[in-house]
């Protein structure tokens, strides 16, 4: 009975007694949700355009963050076996250089991997991205070292109070960045020529090919774009909790977000991220103690799984129509 009470009644009482704290928890969850959405966005972009379920998205974020830190700190030997080392770069220059690295990486991935795996079953493509994740992880660590690093690109990280609720400046900046990113992506997809081509490819590969859309170029573009999204996610996560291996694990957290929002929907990734973020935080704070704590680990997945019973295609996913 005690357990039932602790699970069903007590959390609601707690919420009722201290609504400001509840609001703080919800806002904290929303902020965490924005971060999930950033990673989920990269997934959705690649899945939409090429049908590849890119497990390496989290590692891409880690790799981008590692590269950025490395460039900011300098000290990369440019020419092997000499003492000439790269000087520390200023923030904008380092970011630009990292962006270039991500685009080059997209070219390499397309040329060395995707091009050779055309027409394979989805699970093969999925496994190959896991292989890619292993490779990039080893590569990033070998290049920049595996110790925990901090990114400092000058985002203020102070808390302030408004309407009796604590806000964090950094989280607001992150939210703003995500909003700008989504807006830019939406415009890119809806208004530009390349965006139209991307949507065409997402709709039907063969039809897109037949009207003269170059599939390979599209893949490079979409991997570049999600590389850049990974860069933003990597900076945000890295600045929040340090650049380290665990960064690549946020990719796993992005999966339930995708399920909730639907694999093919950009707004879905955002809304799904927010729901998961809030659900997780509220669940942990109010229901966690009764269940033994650390329920954050699986709560999102359970939420997503239960959700799938009622809407298999996710909140905003295209309705799955099966033709025989």
């Amino acid at each position, binding site marked *: 009975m005690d357990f039932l009470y602790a699970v069903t009644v007590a959390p609601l009482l707690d919420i009722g007694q201290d609504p400001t704290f509840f609001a703080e928890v919800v806002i904290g969850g929303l902020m965490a949700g924005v971060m999930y959405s950033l990673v989920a966005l990269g997934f959705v972009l690649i899945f939409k355009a090429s049908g590849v379920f890119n497990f390496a998205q989290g590692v891409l974020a880690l790799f981008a963050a590692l590269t950025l830190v490395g460039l900011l700190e300098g000290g990369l030997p440019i020419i092997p076996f000499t003492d000439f080392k790269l000087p520390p770069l200023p923030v904008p220059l380092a970011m630009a250089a990292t962006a270039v690295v991500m685009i080059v990486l997209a070219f390499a991935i397309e040329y060395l*991997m995707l091009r050779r*795996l055309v027409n394979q079953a989805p699970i093969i493509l999925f496994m*190959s991205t896991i292989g890619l994740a*292993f*490779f990039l992880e080893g590569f990033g660590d070998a290049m920049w070292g595996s110790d925990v690093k901090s990114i400092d690109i000058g985002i203020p990280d102070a808390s302030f109070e408004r309407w009796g609720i604590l806000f964090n400046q950094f989280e607001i900046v992150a939210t703003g960045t995500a909003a700008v990113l989504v807006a830019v992506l939406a415009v890119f997809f809806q208004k530009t020529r390349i965006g139209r081509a991307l949507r065409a490819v997402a709709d039907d590969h063969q039809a897109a090919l037949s009207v003269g859309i170059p599939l390979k170029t599209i893949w490079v573009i979409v991997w570049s774009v999600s590389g850049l999204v990974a860069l933003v996610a990597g900076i945000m996560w890295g600045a929040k909790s340090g650049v380290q291996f665990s960064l690549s694990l946020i990719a*796993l957290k992005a999966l339930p977000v995708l399920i909730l929002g639907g694999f093919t929907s950009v707004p879905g990734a955002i809304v799904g991220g927010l729901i998961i973020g809030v659900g997780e935080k509220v669940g942990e704070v109010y229901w966690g103690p009764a269940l033994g*704590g650390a*329920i954050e680990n699986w709560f999102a*997945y359970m939420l997503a799984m239960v959700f*799938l019973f009622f809407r298999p295609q996710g909140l905003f996913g295209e309705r799955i129509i099966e033709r025989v």
Partner: protein
Amino acid sequence: MLYREAGQFKTSYGKDQSILPIVQDRWVLGIVLVVAYVVVPLTADDYWFNAILIPFLVYALATLGLNILTGYAGQISLGTGGFMAVGAYAAYKMTTAFPELNIIVVFLLSGLFAAGVGLVFGIPSLRIKGFYLAVATLAAQFFLVWLFNKVAWFYNYNPSGTIEAPPREVFGVLVTGAAATPMVKYLTALTMATVFALAIKNLVRGRIGRSWMAIRDMDIAAEIIGIKPLQTKLLAFALSSYVCGVAGAEFMFLHLGSVETIAFDINLSFLILFMVIVGGLGSVLGSFLGAGFIVLLPILLTNLPAMLGFDVAAVNAKHAELMVFGALIVFFLIVEPNGLARLWQIAKEKLRLWPFPY
């Protein structure tokens, strides 16, 4: 010349439907079994048993289990680690509660618990498919590992949170525990793997296996010809989890000896999935080949630089190992997406015609 079925006539339906219709195949299998049961125990040392052979057999069993689900029934699962954990913890609870129960029986019973859990987490497969299902099985993975970590009853309130294999005898010979010899553990794992491989091979050749493959290839068409998706998919989930559960119990009792829940984390699930894919989806032989490949590869990568005379710092070697492992997986998928089993098949076809090209 050597591998030819000319002159081998089948005079009964039973012979025509045998698992290995060609005499040479039976010879090869016989030789492999003799080597595994006689030559290896006589020659291998403890390192080989502990680091290569026992993990290989345990992983092969888990791969067989996942192959039922992913390879034959076409349902992607990332929850293998969780189901293996169920098997391991169930076996541990049973053998500490009933110490006189034969440990082999404990292994076989522990699979039943895993099967039950697998059934529950298989229910979403009726509504969802493909990667959506894969993520749903991740729920099983994370929830089960969390559960075994949080609820102290599962590890008998041991303050360190680990479970340790107690010494248990079968017919007077120590099979588990720290004092058991690696050879006995190896022979136990080998027998289990052989029996399960035979059982699964027969299962997938029969009506059940065919209905799984029908569901995998096109579920709507399968439904129309009278296969019930509900029962078929759930049966695949239950049987697959059963085998994975037994493998999990072996993983803990025969391979590691003592485990924490971290041993059953998501990486284990990925490792097993790698083995299934590298070995070949929907192939019993492939399960063994894949497990062997993935077990040997890291060992080879660790020792190769030293063998070739390079002196690499240990830290760099670890990174290089990750890189090479990842690159090899991608390379392998590009070269032969159907896995090692397919390579074996191609080799056999070539051998059949040898020395003529056509």
